[in-house]
């Protein structure tokens, strides 16, 4: 296993401690619940925004805690949603008179933990609302009862409600804004390689040297289809052909475009994909409002990328343009 790790079972706690120590006091760490939270939260005048989800998707979500983004994240182990207790205790710890907002990626494990955790915290008098993110078009809503998965589009939900909440929006307003983002965001991911959870110590699945997996889930769940590798141009076509008609995004629309790296793909390749996508979108009459090219939601060191489009209006444009502070930064 080509990883920097001590005891694999301490991987998540040791990573969280690093985030804490790197934050220069801006983030607190509660090891009991894998909890990273803003040192200046909870506050009586601001809704607390909490994300759970599994680890192994970094920078999502523990490195997205900060002013204008998440107030807390309490991830489970690598690729496992958090235990119910983490959700319950985090909700209580971050309780605010303005309420608590749970942002949950639509995976069974995350949903179940957040539903049960919410029930328990509500019994203790915490006011909670939930946003279910489900941007992955690889999974069809109608066929599977669990519905579409939440993947990299999650970033836009966090960014929009994080900014609005910083500006004083109340819980209902955040739910409205969050659901607007969710209604307008769509993603598709393509994997070129597998990945190795530290505790497992071997790759999650096998994939031949000349193969790729279309519609991969962010935990290595197989996607829609496995095919031969094709050129970057063709891959962008595959992504756009899946994502654009789904909403649909139409000529005249303005969009935020994200090329998200799954972990093992170079930023150079992500920009290459972005350039292709940008030109193809403009050719369809879809105007790029803002670009996001980086790792946002990874599957450990998996080689691959996802494309996310978010339809924006003036309100969302304003919120996306607002400043924010997170661990993951260049300067």
């Amino acid at each position, binding site marked *: 296993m080509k990883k920097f790790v001590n005891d694999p079972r301490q991987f998540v706690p040791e990573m969280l401690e690093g985030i804490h120590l790197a934050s220069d006091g801006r983030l607190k760490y509660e090891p009991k619940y894998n909890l990273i939270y803003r040192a200046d939260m909870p506050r009586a005048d601001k809704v607390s925004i909490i994300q759970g989800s*599994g680890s192994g998707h970094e920078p999502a979500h523990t490195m997205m805690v900060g002013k204008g983004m998440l107030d807390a994240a309490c991830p*489970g*182990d*690598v*690729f*496992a*949603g*958090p*235990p*119910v*207790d*983490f959700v319950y205790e985090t909700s209580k710890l971050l309780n605010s008179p303005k309420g608590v907002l749970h942002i949950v990626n639509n*995976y*069974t*494990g995350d949903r*179940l*933990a957040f*539903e*049960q955790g919410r029930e328990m915290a509500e019994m203790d008098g915490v006011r909670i609302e939930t946003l279910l993110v489900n941007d992955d078009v*690889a*999974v069809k809503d109608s*066929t*599977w*009862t*669990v519905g579409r*998965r939440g993947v990299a589009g999650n970033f836009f939900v966090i960014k929009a409600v994080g900014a609005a909440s910083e500006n004083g929006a109340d819980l209902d307003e955040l739910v409205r804004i969050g659901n607007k983002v969710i209604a307008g965001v769509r993603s598709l991911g393509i994997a070129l390689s597998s990945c190795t*959870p530290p*505790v*497992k110590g071997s790759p*999650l*699945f096998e994939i031949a040297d000349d193969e790729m997996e279309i519609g991969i*889930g962010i*935990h*290595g*769940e*197989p*996607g*829609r289809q496995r095919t031969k590798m094709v050129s970057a141009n063709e891959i962008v076509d595959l992504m756009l052909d899946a994502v654009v008609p789904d909403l649909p995004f139409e000529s005249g629309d303005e969009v935020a475009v994200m090329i998200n790296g799954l972990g093992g793909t170079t930023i150079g390749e992500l920009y290459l994909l972005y350039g292709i996508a940008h030109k193809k979108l403009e050719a369809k009459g879809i105007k790029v409002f803002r670009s996001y090219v980086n790792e946002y939601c990874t599957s450990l060191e998996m080689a691959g990328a996802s494309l996310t489009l978010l339809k924006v209006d003036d309100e969302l444009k304003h919120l996306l343009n607002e400043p924010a502070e997170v661990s993951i930064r260049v300067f």
Partner: protein
Amino acid sequence: MTATSLDRLDLVLRTMAETIVENTVYFAELDAVVGDGDFGYSLRSGFEVVVSDYDTFDRTSAGAVLKKIGFVLSSKVGGSSGPIWGTAFLRSAVAAGDKTELNREDVIEILRASVAGIIHRGGAALGEKTLLDSLVPAIDALEAGLARQDAGPQRDAEALQHAADTATKAAEDTKPMLALRGRAAYTGERSIGSVDAGATAVGVILQSISAVWREQYG
């Protein structure tokens, strides 16, 4: 000296926990085929605490010990399995209440309560390729076995073995099913052809329990 019901419950619960810890990698590998490969590790996070701390648990009643396990699972187990198995134990704890002696009907009632908890929490129905698909037929088999009037002194052990075999078989029968729950569901058609991890785990656990039971209580 004959074993009390609580002794027997201890044996069952310890065996269950030990079996899960021993099969961590196997269970994870089953989940990796069409799911995301965390199942065994998730369960271990909780059940290894059950193994190591069992002696410290409040065992003044069946309900007390089941509840404690439910709490441990809620605080340690992530993924779908945390809420599902946690709720199963919490519901069975309610059904067991403060009983210190469990008759055969009590056992079935407790197991049915755990199934109701799983269904409440996870919303799955039979045939959706989940652990319910082996757990429910196994409980049915156990109930039928325990109810046999013609049985000799080995009735319990035989019923347990019958339940375990039913679970093992039922787990095999999840192969042709299309996964409709958990992360395996995302693979659609591709989930067909391999067994469900949760259903298989139920079979493995019951086989262990049956073997240990036979050894102890013949």
